[in-house]
């Protein structure tokens, strides 16, 4: 079909064999989703319990529950959000990665800037 000198096709028009691997297999029972659900419940209760029991000092606890939240977000993205599915490169992964990088910088540096450590002593 293609001329020998014809260039590589655009990703969207390339054979989708390698892309197909990204798509979720929907032929069997959705164990993954079920475990994802159970896992997210477990993480939620873990965070809730840790705070209700005042398990650790506040700073350590905050770090712990933030860690649990990040884990749970990863779970949602990985299990439920079909993150890798796409035709062609998964641009959404690059977009989300950059968004998360900037979002973390935005929140963290805003807090830092607004501390007003003016420093004249």
């Amino acid at each position, binding site marked *: 079909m293609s001329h020998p*000198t*014809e*260039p*590589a*096709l*655009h990703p*969207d*028009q390339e054979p989708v064999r390698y892309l197909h691997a990204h798509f979720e297999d929907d032929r069997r029972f959705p164990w993954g989703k079920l475990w994802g659900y159970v896992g997210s419940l477990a993480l939620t209760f873990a965070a809730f319990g840790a705070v209700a029991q005042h398990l650790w000092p506040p700073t350590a606890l905050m770090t712990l529950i933030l860690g649990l939240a990040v884990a749970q977000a990863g779970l949602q993205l990985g299990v439920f959000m079909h993150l890798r599915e796409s035709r*062609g*490169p998964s*641009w959404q992964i690059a*977009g989300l990665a*950059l*968004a998360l990088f*900037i979002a973390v*910088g*935005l929140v963290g*540096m*805003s807090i*830092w*800037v*607004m*501390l*007003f*450590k*003016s*420093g004249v002593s």
Partner: protein
Amino acid sequence: MQAALSYLLHTLFPPTVLRPTELGADVLILATGVIIVTVLTRQKKWGWLWREWLTTVDHKKIGVMYLIAAIAMLFRGGVDALMMRTNLALPSVHFINAEEYNEVFTTHGTIMIFFMAMPLIFALFNAIIPLMIGARDVAFPRLNAVSFWLFAFGALLFNISFVVGGSPNAGWTAYPPLTELAFNPGPGEDYYFMSLFISGIGTTITGINFLVTILRMRAPGMTLWRMPLFAWTALCTSALILFAFPPLTVALGTSLLDRLFGASFYTLGHGGMPMMYVNLFWLFGHPEVYIVVLPAFGIFSEVVATYARKPLFGYSAMVLSVIAIMVLSYGTWVHHFFTMGAGPGVNVFFGLSTMLIAIPTGVKIFNWIFTMWGGRIRLTVAMLYQLAFIPTFVVGGATGVLLATVPVDYQLHNTYFLVAHFHNTLIGGTVFGLLSGLYYWWPKMFGYKLDERQGQWAFWLFFLGFWITFGPQYLLGLQGMTRRLWTYPFGFGWHELNFISTVGAYIMGAGFLVLVYNVLWSMQHGERDLTGDPWDGRTLEWSLPSPAPEYNFARIPVVTARDAWWAMKAEGRANQVKRVRPEEVAALELPRNTGMPFFLGLGFFIMGFGLVFRWWWIGIAGIVVVLASMLWFGFDYDDKKHVHPDVIRRTEAALGRLEA
């Protein structure tokens, strides 16, 4: 002596009773409106206007509408600038009063950034990007129209503030607490926040649209590393919009909640911090600088390669530096408020990050110069803007490094040095770039060239006017003149340089008039572009007829190299693209025109207007129109029109591109 002169000036320019600005604007708007309505009615053009333009989803037409709106806004912002400069020409001039001056500098900044630079960029994106990457349209043609109408109605809402109720008057940055209800009870700031909120949604949609267009709709073979630089900068600009406009939306939204619904985000008595608004605003505001300047970098990269007849030097370095600028631009925003007292740690961090961003910019400058090295430089008007850009922008960048040097910024912050600096980058970078792009792509957009000789006149007036205006302002900064002063007394020694600066501003104004004359004259007498490739171009848009047919490409080209069209011409394959065999033409689906985007924008406009005046029922009516338009959008499955191959064959035959 000075007292006498002061008295004379007062007599010549008495503290005004009439407001020339408002009155002039009223008369002008009314007259323009009457003329437009009369002409349309007498020519029986209302139906044509609706069918061909107001409901269009063709990216090329949307580009033209952006262009018209942007030029109109350039005029408005320019008149604002001249009013300011007139008032500052000599000490104690009361050409306009302080209130008017405050409104004028606010609208000047806001209009130039949001309603002139942004739409002019989108005009070129719309007109060129799909052609350049070998696509038939943008990814979301209807959303493209939505973007335009949100911008247009946002701009309209902003501009009617001059006529109805009062303009915003707290600067284009609108810092609280000056913009809080208690200090600013009039509707001006509501107009500001509301109109930017509305047009900001439109801009965000544009960002998504062009990002996806470039990522997903390139012609076969056009890998990212074969993309023209303008497409790269459009890609990065779109990404910047995606990340930068949300903080602005939140800053504007929270200010609106404060003003309209009594929230306490920035009210001091309730624990609010105005600096948090400033923080969010510049989280948007600094990337915004690159949103408006990166496309200019892209334009220059195309222009210099074309007119030097040489491929862009250091393509990979250029692309990487664009990406570096994109990422770094999120880490520099605090340099807009080093003097807030955030402490040396914060200031040093952001000072260093700002200096860091100068490096990729420097790389670009040298690459442009070395693109010319070993080339053959044709001094067209587009190229003149490029050549004017390099020194102007280098000076702007150098003074930027000065301002990034934290202790120096303590002295220069908010002075005329700063004013000169950012005009150097925004005019020298963005405006020169966009003008260069307009001269370059004008034949592609409209089918005729702009007259070169008149263009040179406009260029020299504009360029010299620019330096006469802003060169002295650096020195005024060193004399301690701070920005946003509506007048100043004798005795500071500021008047000489201010006078020169005002003269320069009028020269720039003359340049604008010549530019407009150039366009109007060329419309009648300009050289028609029958080849589609008047400049011996390098990129795919020049393989198309000027202007391109509605479907752009009868057959999508296959790209084999960077500077795809140049390579095709060099390999003698131009006709493979320029000629199409009848049997190669397939039926096409094109987006169908729709009034939905117009009504969506109208709904937002009604909502905004109602909320500005706290006429809640009008606001709710606007929201109902918005929701109804969105529902219409969701339920409209008949959004395509089918174009028969015969139609395409006929069109191509008429263009002389169909092989017999």
